[in-house]
């Protein structure tokens, strides 16, 4: 294209500018190998039109029409290219976000540095490498450099949140410290996060111990991602979509109107005529009230007597009547100064054919009276009534505008298939288009008449490319709606289903095998005190690493391959299909693969956690209460010697909860007791959190001899004092879990501390003196 301004008029300027903007953006995409031939074709058409307009021998009217259609033709290109670019920028942000854990995982698996400095060092290297690859291959960086800065902003937010987390952790700790709950042994100081991190480190270290298996699994997932990406990355193609609308009418042509019957621009007719002078373009003008309170138009006899109100006016061009047999039949004698009305209206006015009437002050002759039934049944080619739509029937606010519908093919289609209520024929007067225009009607539709259906199809396709709504037109086998839309959708979920299932099964198998392989290891972990949940975390961590490495690794491989193929195709060695590896679609694919990897490790992780704790139920359930009493034997046995210490240990724990605030319960009246038969125990009153539920109970704990001599069972009796029974049961679950934890902690404290608690009991209940020892001997 020449750089000379086409002309000084605004339309030409806008059309050329829009074309240039599209050109510069598509250039970036082309340079990065993102091709879309359908967009290029649309863009090319727009250029052709501009070139024709720039030709010196083009008549002014035609030039105007050409530049306007070029502008309209560039509009969908602009929207699609812009959406594509926005999509790329968004995609690269997610990729940058993913590259952080990716670099972390790579460092852990490949290097496994022992000091944090080396870890940071390698992390930075891997991150920089990933970033560099993205920077060189991803077009978003060519469009805008802002992703880097956005990423920096993101990093600052993440770091601030980390520091907030550090401070809040400290705050919580200090708050507990103020309550005196940290220094005691009663807190199992295991934060979920640190355990998770430890489990993750362990998972990764087992991966490092089996390099072959790890490498093969990682490669499998990388290839899987790669394959799925290739499936998913075929871009969509834009083109004319056709949808059957109705059987063929007795004429050929195309019908132009907004889907929601919004008025058309008056210039549209001129533009179509200017662009395709060989076509017959006929206007359809209406007056149709938009609101209920619109009184309509007044019609009366020439002396202004017997006024009648009609709500709508239909303006038809005589040329259209000449082209359509059905119109000739209904409106055959419509002339410039005639008005056609139904018999009912004529009756109300008291006029007959040939008489004069006043329609909005205009003197018109009444033509042949209309047959109400026939006119009501008369349809245009897309089966819409020829009568003006009744906008008062459909609340205008609920109707989407053409602008909001633009680009939404399905919505638009459903709109165009809706049946609009038309005004009753007895409330409509028919006049010629020119008369209607003079009365104040607006343009609502254009009918383009062609010589045959081939020309009709061509016209419809041309119009569909420039107008943002479907164009019904006659084809050989019926009327079809023509719409610029998506013709090829290769990235549908169905196509991806099987590769993903396949990949999921691969991971599933690998993980399951790994669980079987590592039974012994799991027992060791479990013996070392790793809870079943943490063993499961270990496997999750492993699969998370696979997901990260596989997901982003597969992506980088795909981008790299595309790059290589692109270079090869430049030398004519092969032909590369159009693939877009940079869009959000691709990102979604990566995320789906990663999610699949994680999901497929759920069962193996559960299995692993089960083998970590084969004998016990993973969560212990207290028995159902009888009335207000819950009587249960705790799933712990304590030696008769130890129980002397346990009661003091629990008393201290209860003592820490005499103040409300943190914690799951509040205690009062805590005291050690000894039954007459020598059984030791602990009594207390408890209120359970949340305290606003008002649940309180008495707590009685007794040691009772079990079947095995020297071993005591722990019996707990809870008696509800207040609160709803359901709340009471529910909250006790939490309380009993806490109590269970105390028993676990008891087993982990050093013998001298146990002895210290034992002494406390002995001091509190001096009558026990010698009892403990005696029991020990017993």
């Amino acid at each position: 294209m020449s750089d000379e301004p086409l002309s000084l008029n605004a339309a030409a300027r806008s059309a050329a500018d829009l074309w240039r903007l599209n050109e510069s953006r598509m250039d970036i995409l082309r340079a990065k190998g993102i091709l879309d031939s359908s967009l290029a074709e649309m863009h090319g058409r727009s250029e052709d039109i501009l070139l024709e307009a720039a030709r010196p021998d083009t008549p002014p009217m035609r030039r105007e029409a050409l530049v306007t259609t070029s502008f309209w033709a560039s509009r969908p290109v602009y929207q699609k290219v812009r959406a594509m670019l926005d999509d790329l920028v968004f995609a690269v942000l997610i990729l940058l976000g993913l590259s952080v854990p990716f670099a972390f995982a790579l460092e852990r698996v490949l290097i496994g540095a022992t000091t944090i400095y080396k870890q940071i060092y390698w992390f930075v290297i891997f991150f920089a490498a990933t970033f560099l690859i993205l920077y060189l291959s991803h077009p978003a960086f060519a469009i805008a450099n802002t992703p880097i800065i956005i990423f920096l902003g993101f990093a600052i937010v993440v770091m601030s949140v980390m520091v907030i987390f550090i401070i809040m952790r400290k705050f919580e700790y200090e708050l507990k410290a103020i309550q005196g709950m940290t220094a005691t042994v009663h807190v199992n100081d295991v934060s979920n996060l640190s355990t998770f991190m430890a489990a993750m480190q362990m998972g990764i270290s087992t991966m490092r111990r089996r390099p072959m298996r790890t490498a093969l699994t990682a490669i499998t997932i990388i290839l899987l991602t790669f394959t799925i990406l290739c499936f998913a990355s075929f871009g969509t193609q834009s083109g004319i979509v056709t949808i059957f609308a109705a059987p063929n009418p007795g004429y050929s042509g195309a019908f132009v109107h907004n889907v929601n019957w919004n008025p058309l621009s008056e210039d549209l007719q001129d533009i179509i005529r200017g662009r395709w002078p060989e076509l017959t373009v006929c206007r359809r003008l209406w007056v149709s009230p938009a609101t209920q309170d619109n009184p309509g138009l007044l019609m009366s006899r020439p002396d202004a007597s017997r006024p009648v109100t009609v709500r709508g006016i239909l303006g038809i061009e005589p040329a259209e009547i000449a082209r359509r047999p059905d119109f000739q039949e209904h409106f055959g004698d419509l002339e410039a100064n005639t008005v056609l009305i139904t018999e009912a209206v004529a009756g109300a006015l008291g006029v007959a054919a040939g008489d004069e009437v006043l329609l909005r002050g205009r003197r018109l002759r009444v033509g042949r009276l209309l047959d109400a039934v026939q006119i009501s049944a008369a349809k245009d080619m897309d089966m819409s009534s020829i009568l003006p739509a009744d906008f008062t029937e459909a609340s205008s606010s609920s109707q989407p505008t053409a602008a909001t519908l633009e680009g939404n093919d399905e919505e638009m289609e459903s709109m165009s298939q809706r049946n609009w209520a038309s005004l009753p024929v007895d409330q409509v007067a028919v006049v010629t288009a020119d008369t209607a225009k003079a009365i104040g009607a607006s343009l609502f539709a254009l009918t383009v008449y062609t010589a045959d259906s081939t020309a009709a199809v061509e016209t419809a396709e041309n119009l569909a490319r420039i107008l943002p709504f479907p164009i019904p037109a006659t084809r050989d086998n019926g009327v079809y709606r023509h719409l610029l839309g998506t013709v090829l959708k290769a990235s549908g979920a169905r196509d991806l289903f099987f590769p993903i299932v396949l990949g999921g099964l691969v991971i599933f198998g690998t993980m399951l095998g790994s669980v079987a392989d590592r039974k012994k290891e799991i027992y060791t972990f479990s013996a070392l005190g790793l809870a079943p949940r943490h063993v499961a975390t270990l496997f999750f961590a492993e699969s998370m690493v696979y997901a990260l490495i596989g997901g982003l690794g597969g992506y980088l491989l795909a981008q790299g391959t595309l790059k290589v193929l692109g270079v090869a195709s430049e030398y004519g060695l092969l032909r590369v299909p159009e693939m877009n590896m940079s869009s959000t679609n691709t990102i979604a694919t990566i995320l789906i693969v990663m999610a699949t990897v994680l999901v497929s490790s759920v069962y193996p992780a559960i299995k692993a956690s089960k083998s970590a704790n084969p004998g016990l139920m993973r969560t212990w359930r207290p028995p159902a209460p009888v009335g207000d009493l819950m009587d249960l034997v705790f799933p712990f046995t304590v030696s008769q010697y130890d129980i002397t210490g346990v009661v003091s240990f629990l008393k201290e724990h209860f003592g820490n909860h005499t103040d409300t605030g943190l914690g799951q319960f509040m205690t009062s009246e805590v005291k050690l007791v000894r039954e007459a038969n020598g059984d030791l125990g602990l009594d207390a009153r408890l209120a359970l959190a949340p305290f606003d539920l008002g649940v309180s109970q008495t707590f009685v704990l007794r040691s009772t001899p079990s079947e095995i001599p020297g071993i005591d069972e722990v019996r707990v009796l809870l008696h509800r004092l207040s609160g709803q029974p359901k709340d009471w049961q529910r909250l006790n679950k939490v309380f009993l879990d806490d109590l269970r934890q105390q028993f676990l902690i008891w087993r982990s404290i050093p013998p001298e501390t146990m002895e210290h608690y034992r002494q406390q009991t002995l001091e509190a209940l001096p009558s026990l003196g010698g009892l403990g020892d005696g029991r020990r001997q017993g």
Partner: protein
Amino acid sequence: MEHRIDRELDEFRRIMEVPSTFEEGFRWSALFGAIFVALLMVPGAIYMGLLAGTGIGSAAQWVTVILFIEVARRAHRYLNRSEIFVLFFMAGSMMGAATTGGLLWQQFFAQSDAAAANGLVDQLPLWWAAPIESDSYAQRTFFHLDWLPAILMMVFGSFAGQLSNVVLGYGLFRVASDMEKLPFPMAPVGAQGIMAMAEDIEAKDAKTAEDSWRWRVFAIGGALGLAFGAIYLFLPVISGALTGTAIQIFPIPFSDFTGQTGLYLKAVATGISWDFGNIITGMVMPFYGMVGSFIGLIVTVVANPILYNHGILSNWKFGDDTVSTLFKNNIDFYFSLHIGIAVAIALAGIYQVARSVVRSRRTRRAPAGGSKRSSWKDVPPGRGDIGGWAILLCYFLVTSAYTAVSIGLLMWHHGGWTTDIRNVLIVLLILGFFYTPLVSYVTARLEGMVGQVVEVPMIREAALILSGYHGVAVWFLPLPIANYGTMTVFYRQCELTGTKFTSIWKTKIILFPLILLSTIFFMNFIWGLDQIPSVAYPFAQRMWELNAANSCIMYSATMGEFSMFEQAFNIVYLGFGAVFGVVLFGGMQLLGAPIMLTYGVVRGLGQSLPHSILPQFVGALIGHFYFKKRLKLKWRQYIPVVAAGFSCGMGLITTVGVGVTFLSKAVIKLPF
């Protein structure tokens, strides 16, 4: 009453004892910290500033320090308090350099509509911005020959500024802290935060949980800051970013009642600031200082209607809001009054210094008398001090260089010597050798006594306009005018954390080029991204043209047009201020009132922040009559740490808010 003054001063001085040993703080950690800040924080801060208009300075400091401590801990290395202090200070000075508009503002101003409309574009000197016809504007790059003078001037300005700041600040510190033993009440706020970090590390080492109370208090302050910040700043920012309407539970920056109360209280700005930080500040500051401020506020509330009725505050109109009330009052009366009071403060300071010198001589003669004031040579060993002659020489050289460069530039700009230039020379000499030392010393004393900065508003503008210079070039000169008084607080913190002063100077020398390079580089990079201002930077887009217009009003004052500074400068009021100040100081001295009360009154008379004085006074009352009674001396130790934690928490939550806004507004979408 003398003993009482000393008691409160002593109490503040005893919050933190100066450690017996001083350690080197400049290690590898500082260098890595600098690189971390330069690569991550600086560009983010510049960009966020353009986009949202909010700096992330203090939060960035804490983030850097806490993350570095955490990383070091994981490597089983423990940063000592000097290292933490250097890291903290380094991050602070880098962020300070990054948030200013700098070259980005210069390129914008040269192209702004305001500059063009005022006919300034052709008169802008080459050492400030490239000529408008330069193609660097089209290429959007500072790495262009046309920008070389501007960049060189920036380098010179920051180098000379940093040098004199560090050296003269040090000299003032020696006077105010070593010799006069002033308490520096705000110094522990920064220092205690760092001590909290250091103590936590040390506690992990030695398991001395009871001693590490500072972390606990810091964490409580931090949580308080986070909680309040979440409501005060985060909620409006987030709701504004996500829904378009900012939900403000507490009006920011304050609730303004001036419009309503103007009917009864003429020319008095009324309102209240809801920032909880004010209450905490009131608790930290010396109690009598806060009482004095409150008295000062009451005095203005009483005096302003009288001044208004006598036609002195003549510009005020009913309906004016806080900002315009304060601005008009300044122009009408307080601008001159403050210069006068500043002179009085300086006189009082000089009198006290002179008295202390005389006393120390007497003490030397009579060794039995135990005076608190010390001589110049009394310095703790191993602190890394330098001699007094070096300070004076450095200051003399820097000020002379400033003056010489400025006059040289003017001669270059005008092509020779003119009487205008001679006048400017006189002004520069007065500013450099009289005003700057004076205001710096006064500030050092105020910082030392009540933690306040004395600001004589618009002095630079007034001096340049009064010089009678014609043209705009003078506005862009590197002027030898600064306030080095604030640096004394910094040195006090340095001393309290046991950091050798030499590590500060090393840090400056090593980091200075890094700061400059990263700032210039990233400004260039960000300019390269897009036109500034443009739709991509909503804040700059909205505010910069307005700021440029305001600047033009000022610049045009030396172009022979009406200027409000001439109107504001009233020698009678100035004299009245000076007399008032002297009488106030003398009277208070005679009555034996606490010295902080006097400085507090001066602060309260200031027309800068009346809305925060009330909450600060409330904070002071709560602190003095409730917490201090309960916690005794510990209170004085606790509250600065709470304040440090609070500002850290507020800063962090604000950063998160700004960051989220930034991400939501960031140009994820193409603008067109």
